[in-house]
Structures are given as structure tokens and as C-alpha cells.
């Protein structure tokens, strides 16, 4: 084997030894993007434009500051974030909010229970309320989501049933069908933020 071949082999070995650094760097870049696909569509719906150079956490905070408000009920400890486009009116019914144009509304009902209200009992009751409801719905974070079209009014109603061992929370959103995509994304976010004092942390 010539000296040049030996030199070439040595150089290749050195490069391979260094290679893991660059491989890690590539993996790292991919890994930091976990969650980005969830927040990016939401950010695009807001006034938060310049996200270049922001970390994912900074982008998330920027979105939450710009687009979300916090709701809290002191009796049940129920908390969630809701779109800032909804404004509660302190002077009338404090549990109903509406957008500035009045086209979309949101109401919240909170109630405590002694543990006797179970998911199964609730499902049977929802079947009565929602025609065609098959008992499945969409569930995430202990929240059942049932959406129905009101074709005559070109409106959509989404019911969120959040049940814990101690309390039950019913959030009703009504919004124009034309804005279904926007509200659907916001509702996903809302559901993820729901919690009470006895729910899991974080």
C-alpha cells in the first residue's frame, strides 16, 4: 500500500470520527421542530409576523400573548385559554362572551359533582342532545368535543364537555361555517389548555 493511500485512509478515519458531530447537529435541528407544525398555523392567523430567530418557546409565548386570554373559575379551579377575539361582558351574564361583530359566541357552565357523574352517563345524555351522535366524538385531554352544523343559519356549534372526578364544564361555541377552519384550530388549542386543581400537571 502506498503512502498516499495510507494518508487518504487516515484522513477518512479522522473525518468519520468527526462526522458524529455533524450528524447530531442535523438530528438536533429536526428534533427542535417537534411541535412547530402545531403552532405555525396558529401564528399565521395572528399579527405575530416576525418569528425569525425565535425559539419554539418564544414563538409559543408570542402567540399566546397575542391571541389567547385566560379564563378561570375559582369555585371549581377550572382554567383554560380562549381566543382573545371573545370578550366577556361583565355587566350582563358573565359566562357568555362574544366577538366584537357578534357573529361568534362562547358560553361556559361550571358545576361541581360528587363523582357520580361519569363519562358513560354523560355520553348517554349527549346522545339525546345531539342527533346522530354515536357516542364517540373527539376526545383529547379528558374533553369530549362534539361539532354539529346548523345548515339553515350557516353556523356551527361545538360543544366541549370537560369532565373530572369533581367537576363538569360545558363550553359551547357558535361560529360561522365560513370560519370553521380558524375556529377548529383555536378549539384544539383551548382543549389542550383545560385543567382543574385535580387534573394532571403541566
Amino acid at each position: 500500500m502506498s503512502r498516499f493511500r495510507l494518508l487518504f485512509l487516515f484522513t477518512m478515519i479522522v473525518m468519520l470520527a468527526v462526522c458524529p458531530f455533524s450528524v447530531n447537529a442535523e438530528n438536533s435541528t429536526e428534533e427542535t421542530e417537534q411541535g412547530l407544525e402545531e403552532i405555525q398555523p396558529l401564528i399565521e392567523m395572528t399579527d405575530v409576523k416576525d418569528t425569525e430567530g425565535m425559539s419554539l418557546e418564544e414563538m409559543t409565548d408570542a402567540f399566546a400573548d397575542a391571541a389567547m386570554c385566560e379564563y378561570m373559575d375559582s369555585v371549581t379551579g377550572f382554567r383554560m385559554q380562549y381566543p382573545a377575539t371573545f370578550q366577556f361582558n361583565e355587566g350582563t351574564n358573565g359566562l357568555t362572551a362574544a366577538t366584537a361583530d357578534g357573529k361568534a359566541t362562547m358560553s361556559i357552565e361550571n358545576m361541581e359533582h360528587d363523582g357520580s357523574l361519569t363519562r358513560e352517563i354523560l355520553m348517554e345524555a349527549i346522545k339525546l342532545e345531539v342527533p346522530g351522535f354515536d357516542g364517540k366524538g373527539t376526545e383529547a385531554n379528558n374533553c369530549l368535543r362534539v361539532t354539529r352544523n346548523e345548515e339553515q343559519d350557516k353556523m356551527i356549534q361545538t360543544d366541549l364537555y370537560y369532565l373530572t372526578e369533581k367537576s363538569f364544564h360545558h363550553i359551547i361555541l357558535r361560529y360561522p361555517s365560513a370560519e370553521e377552519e380558524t375556529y377548529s384550530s383555536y378549539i384544539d388549542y383551548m382543549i389542550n389548555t383545560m385543567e382543574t386543581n385535580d387534573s394532571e400537571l403541566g
Partner: protein
Amino acid sequence: MMKRKNIAIILMVLMLTAASVLPAGNALAENRTGVVKGGWLILRAEPSFNGAIRASYPSGTTVTITGQIGSWYAVTTQDGLTGYMLGDYLQVGGSSGGSTGTGTFIDSTAYITSANGLNVRMRSGPGKGYSVVASYAPGTQCTIISPGNNWCRIQVGSYTGYMMTQFLSGTAVPVPVTPAPAPMPGPSGSEYTVYVTSRNGNGVNLRSGPSKSYTSIGFYSVGTQAAMITKGTTWSYIRVGNRYGYMMTEFLTESQPAVPTPYVSGAYVVSANGRNVNLRAAPTTQSAVIRSCKVGTPVTIITRGVDWYFVLIDGAYGYMMRQFIYDGSAPATVTDLSPYAGIL
């Protein structure tokens, strides 16, 4: 001659390789202090990610810096160990010491902890609005992939996701949950506890500025605890949890208000002849009677069926025929309201 030339080439390759891996740096002539920030930082035997792990230290740990090689600091810890720590996660001499967060990954073992023993959620992103990937019991071991001040990216088994930093500990022994961040100091000095209150029992808006023209950033029910930072005549600057904003001073009280009655939808039992109405176990008149309810009894409606409502009456759940419930919004559905005008 050829041999010397090859040796020179090899040396150049080695130097170029070293330069690409380790940023240039100078040894420190004097000792300085560094404080770990952004999560848990590993102490390694060598200034490299391949260096053997000697220990890991949580945010706030103070170390003595004895030297620097590239982006790595040679340190001595308070428990007497020596080694190298990545400079990105050390606050040196009061300066920022480099950016935290993305770009560099540190492997570190940590344990999930919670003060009340509840599970902790792993989410798909660094915020509570992200979906829940999994939840883990306190004591679960995890690997810190990327530390952060508020959220860390972690791995548990085959799952990776984000968890709040306050629920991660560098040791297996559960530690108390980190308290909420210190409030911003107000001009008047220390803060004190206040409670949200209102005459009509409704919730109150927290706003971004001291006027109703400012946007609402939160809505809080009567009884919600808050921290008064600056009390004004009309508007006060307060903190609710980690959220800061302005609330009208008249809606804040230093004495805890009576716990308001859980919200009911304003519905009542009605009947045309004044007789009691049955609350039943199922939406049929053949089902068992749970309770016999007097006219005027408050009803909380949970779901509304065509003929039957699923309701809560004085702590009991069950079904009641729609025609016997006045819900305040659709009087036309009520059999006869005239005898109960005083009630309704």
C-alpha cells in the same frame, strides 16, 4: 523528504479537524464564578460531548471557573468535582454567558417530580396549548434532551416531548415544586393578597391597560385569588398566577368573599298544575324516580334533548321532561308560566 511532507499534511489535517470541532478559546488567567442556567448541566471529564459524565447540576448551582477551552469551561463544583461544562448554560460573572435553548443538546438524567403527587404531562411543544403526548408519575426517570427555563425537551422511553422545567429534578428524591416566579416589583413596594369580587356575582376582566378600552387578557370568577402590586384609585395593577394586568379596583377586595353559588343556568322546575315533577334515572317515564321536585326548584341543565333534559338538581343527576323546565330563554316551550310569574 517525502516522509516529512506526509507528516506535515497529517498535522495540518489534525489541526483543521480540531479547529472545526472546538471553537478557539483562551485559558483564563484567573478564577471566575459561573451559575448554571436553563435546566441541568452535565459536568464532563473532557471538553467534549464525548467526555465521560461525572455529574449533573440544576439551574442555580454555582461553580468556580478555572479555565476555558473553546465553548467549554473548566470548572470546580462546590462538592469538589472538577471537569468541563458547556458555556452556553453557564452565566459567567453576571453576564449572560451565551444564549440558552436551541442549538446545543445536552444528555442528562432527570426525574419527574410534583409536590402533590399528581402525574405530569409531556406535551408536543413548549406550552400548555400543545397536545398531550403522555403523562408520567413522579419519580419517572427521563433524559433531558434540551433544557430550558420554562420547558425542557425530554425523552422517556421511546417518547420525546416537552415538560415544564419546574416538574423536573436532577435528583431522584422528589423536591417541592418551584414556586411561581417572583412578581414584578410595583412602585408601592411589596405585594399583598386580594380577591376578585363583584356585586352581581359575575366574573371580572383582567385588562392589558388601565382602561376598558384595553383588551381583556383574562376573565376571572369571584373569589379568584390575586396579588395586588400597585393599587390605584380606579385601576390596580395585579398578578393572577403568572399573568399580569389591570383590574378595576372596585372589583378587588382584601377579605376573601363568600364562595359564590355554582353557576346555574337560571332554569327552574315548572308545572301547569303545581304538582311536583319527577327527576328520573333515564329519559323515559318507565324509569326509576330519583327525586320528586317542587315547582321553582333551581335546575342546572347539562344537555338538552328533544323531549328530555339531563339536569343537576340539588346534587342529583337525572332526566326531567323538557316541558317541566323553564330555562329562561325559550318560554314558549313551557307548559304554562302564568301561575308562577312570581317565581320566574
